[in-house]
């Protein structure tokens, strides 16, 4: 699809995708040294999160489920404070009370990471309701996976959003197609009787779109139009962004099966040797984006290496920040059950 993004936007999206990728690669490594509860990788889906935020404004609100690192980082949260939260430390966004499954950041307008996959969608309808009441033209975006559609509250929330024309972008990331070795990890896939997920909101008169979630330009075109529609008061839009699932989650399959990304593999396929080589060539959204942008002359290889190095340094510092942060005082767990 034709790229409607300007140079600065494309570079911002590149940086976000690199940041997300390097963050999660670091996280897998971090898991070797620290015992923390869960992680669920967004690798393979970065193009969606990194691009959606390009169409938002700072006063918009966001929610997600537990495949959340990409959404938070794309929105601009601090990776060091995210590491601290994932390690349960005092400098974490939630002072170690939420962990990766419940990261929130009020300043970034990030209301919720829900551990219940459908739960975020119900809350999102409410955030949309409050934003509509306030009447300042802000919208709410909720990211959720295909599996969320299996929970009833999602249907109810979409019905309310449609009936009340709530300013909500339902950003469904369908990563259920062509999952690599799903059986090996033993992790479940969604089972939905509808032949296409986006048919479900369509039946509720919600404007529904289908897009290749690994294609930055396509996502940007669809989401920009959707956001513009929503902001104009035309009610919710549902976008189904499909992508190829990346393996790796803790505790089900805590392993980085596809290896650490080499950006040079975008032009030098001989760098790819593992069993997932063909998958990376065809579906890796980061490699695809680099390949396309190099062809269009957005940046040189040296500039790319330079950006990647800077981001890797940032991630190294983020990890050090998180690891250096103290564990909270156990007694502090008793505080803050209720708001003042």
């Amino acid at each position, binding site marked *: 699809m034709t790229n409607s993004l300007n140079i600065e936007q494309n570079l911002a999206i590149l940086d976000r995708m690199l940041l997300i990728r390097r963050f999660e690669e670091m996280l897998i490594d971090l898991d070797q040294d620290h015992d923390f509860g869960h992680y669920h990788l967004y690798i393979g889906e970065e193009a969606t999160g990194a691009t959606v935020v390009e169409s938002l404004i700072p006063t918009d609100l966001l929610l997600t489920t537990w495949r959340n690192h990409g959404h938070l980082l794309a929105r601009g949260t601090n990776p060091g404070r995210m590491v601290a939260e994932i390690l349960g430390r005092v400098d974490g966004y*939630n002072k170690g009370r939420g962990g990766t499954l419940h990261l929130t950041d009020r300043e970034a307008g990030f209301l919720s990471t829900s551990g219940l996959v459908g739960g975020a969608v*119900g809350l999102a309808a*409410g*955030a949309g*309701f*409050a934003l509509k*009441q306030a009447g300042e033209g802000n919208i709410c975006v909720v990211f959720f996976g295909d599996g969320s559609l299996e929970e009833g509250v999602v249907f109810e929330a979409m019905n309310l959003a449609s009936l009340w024309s709530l300013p909500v972008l339902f950003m469904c990331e369908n990563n259920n197609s062509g999952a690599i070795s799903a059986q090996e990890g033993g992790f479940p896939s969604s089972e939905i009787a509808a032949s296409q997920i986006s048919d479900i909101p369509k039946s509720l008169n919600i404007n529904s779109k289908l897009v290749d979630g690994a294609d930055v330009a396509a996502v940007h075109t669809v989401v920009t139009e959707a956001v513009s529609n929503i902001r104009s008061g035309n009610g919710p839009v549902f976008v189904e962004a499909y992508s190829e699932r990346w393996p790796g989650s803790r505790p089900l399959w805590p392993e980085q099966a596809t290896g650490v990304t080499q950006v040079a593999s975008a032009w030098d396929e001989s760098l790819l040797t593992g069993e997932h080589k063909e998958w990376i060539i065809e579906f890796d959204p980061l490699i695809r984006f680099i390949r396309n942008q190099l062809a269009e002359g957005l940046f040189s290889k040296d500039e790319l290496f330079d950006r990647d190095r800077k981001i890797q340094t940032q991630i190294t510092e983020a990890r050090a920040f998180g690891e250096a942060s103290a564990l909270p005082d156990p007694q502090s767990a008793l505080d803050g059950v209720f*708001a003042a």
Partner: protein
Amino acid sequence: MPPDSSANIQSDRNITLKAAVLEAMFEEMKCDENVVLIGEDVGAAGGVFKQTEGLFETFGADRVIDTPISESAIFGLSVGAAMAGSRPIVEVMFGDFLTLVMDQLVNQAAKVHYMSAGGFNVPLVLRTGIGIGGSLGPQHSQSLHSWLAHIPGLKVVMPSSAADAKGLFKAAVRDNNPVIFMEDRMTYNLKEHVPTGEKIIPLASAAVKRKGVEVTIFAISRAVHTALAAAEILLEEKNISTEVVDLRTLAPLDVETIVSSVRKTGRAIVLDGGYKSFGITGEIAATIGELVFDYLDAPVMRLAAPDIPVPYSPSLESLMVPSVDQVVAKVSTMFGDSV
């Protein structure tokens, strides 16, 4: 003051509990435009028990919002709205339907403030009707307050009278936490004098509704009236001086008032319209045992609903609600042969 358009707000100030809560809603919606009312049939219909009558006409469809039969999403939506700046009053028609909102209530509303380390609050009131009576059957008669009080992060309020209901409701709307406000339908039409003007009753404050020195009956909601009637009979027929403490708020519990009453009377019985097993009667009895055992002259007694689904037939249903006679008999046994 509520506007004239509200037909069921009475001028003599002896008003029903239902009217008192309605008055509280009028006042709170009037003074804070972020307060909205959301629920099934709360709008033009004025509520299935006419408990929201007049609000729609006064505040309009933007703030008094009828919903589809989607309890889970209605409540989830209210939580999200509260996090984003609204102060919703969300009505769940029957307390039994709380089962449909449990995930949003327990996994979202109760935990948002804590999980976000104070980043977000959930200032909302979940209002629901509970209680046994009128042959509503097993799925429309349950009193599930003990379930809710078990969850850290939720406040549970259960008024017994009109003045309390108004003051507690106003406090609930102004609270920055999820508050579940449960009214026993059998108390809806009980009247009492409700003062005009601003009277906020702090949550977590029990009230001594009758002073006594020999035994304390702890009760909440409708059971308070049973306790008061029993106390009168106990005095007249057995010369037992009975104190009645209305807990008013289950969570947080006013432990100080409970223990100070037991220190004075030395005997305690806990009365509740909910189930006996794993319920609030056990919780309060255990609290008394832990904190003021040395003051007790008799074991703490309990009277609550038997552990069966609420049956339909009036004759069967009557078994579910502890009666005045049962309370009198039970208290009498605590005094052995002396009465």
